[in-house]
């Protein structure tokens, strides 16, 4: 039960969110910050992790928001060792393409953001699979929209599922919660995604993918080349 994208803010707010998440059955959550807030948030990270160690495991995700490919590469290189997961908010086709081609980035978040389509095609899907970049779908986008806008987002989700089944790129599902009102139980979360068109095993696989990303990044320092890692 892994959620890699809960919007982080102050210490108190994070504590309340994490406590609520642990009550609802989540095992591990990541608070996401953008590149401007990440350094400030690192100040209280150890304290927060210690205070919550009896309830839930936490980590930080760096969520890059930029439309400049050069800047994205620079930020990725700078924060690669500090963040347990690096995601990039998509939406712009150029950025989506740049993201799935960059092996240093873990997650392409919301490729459908502010678009009329899913933001992915067969080429991007293949690139995502080859470079092991996960595509993230956010529950909050559906939660906070309504009527035609909501149905368009659900339709974008379905287009993504179709590509996912064909090209088998890593897919992760996250809540994107900003407040305690946005956090749901794990079973509700699963129920929603099964209703939107995924099978139960695919939902479970997405949780496993999130776990794999975190485990892979723990060992990233030992990685020499793709497929070559220092064991001792």
């Amino acid at each position, binding site marked *: 039960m892994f959620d890699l994208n809960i919007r982080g803010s102050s210490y108190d707010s994070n504590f309340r969110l994490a406590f609520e998440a642990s009550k*609802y059955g989540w095992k591990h959550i990541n608070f996401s910050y953008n590149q401007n807030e990440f350094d400030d948030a690192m100040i209280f990270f150890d304290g927060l992790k210690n205070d919550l160690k009896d309830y839930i495991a936490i980590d930080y995700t760096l969520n890059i928001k930029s439309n400049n490919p050069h800047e994205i590469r620079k930020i990725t290189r700078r924060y690669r060792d500090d963040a347990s997961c690096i995601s990039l908010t998509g939406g712009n086709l150029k950025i989506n393409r740049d993201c799935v081609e960059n092996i240093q980035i873990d997650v392409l978040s919301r490729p459908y953001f502010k678009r009329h389509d899913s933001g992915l095609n067969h080429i991007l899907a293949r690139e995502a699979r080859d470079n092991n970049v996960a595509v993230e779908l956010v529950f909050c986008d*559906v*939660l*906070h929209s*309504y*009527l035609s806008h*909501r149905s368009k987002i659900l339709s974008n989700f379905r287009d993504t599922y179709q590509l996912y089944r064909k090209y088998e790129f890593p897919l992760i599902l996250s809540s994107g919660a900003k*407040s*305690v*009102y*946005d*956090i*749901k*139980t794990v*079973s*509700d*979360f699963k*129920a*929603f995604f*099964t*209703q*939107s068109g995924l099978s139960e095993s695919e939902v479970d696989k997405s949780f496993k993918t999130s776990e794999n990303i975190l485990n892979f990044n723990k060992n990233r320092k030992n990685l020499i080349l793709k497929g070559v890692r220092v064991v001792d």
Partner: protein
Amino acid sequence: MKLKILPKSQRKHNHYLVLDIKSEIELSKNDFTSIVWDGCIRFQGENNTSNFNLWTIKLIKSDEISFLNEYKAILRCQRDFEDEVRSSLALIHNVNRKRISITCIGISGTIKGCQKFI
């Protein structure tokens, strides 16, 4: 004249969802029922919602001191449609521009069985 109660084999099979509700405003049982129906009709449509056999059994205000209004509720729904109801309720996020969150914390085949979740 009152209708005779159906034999057991002919009755609909129900399951009971235990819900955790957080709200910025105070809710009555009637308010809650209309919120649930609106949510289901909005997400699943009129045709699907007609299968759910929804009925609010109980709405209990939580005693815990909190900065928001917390409730627990028991909602009846037809067996095999739990996931549809759950996902519809999970997508309710505001009522009259005030925040609300409904999430299912337990499920049981009997009302008595729901007590352990409350």
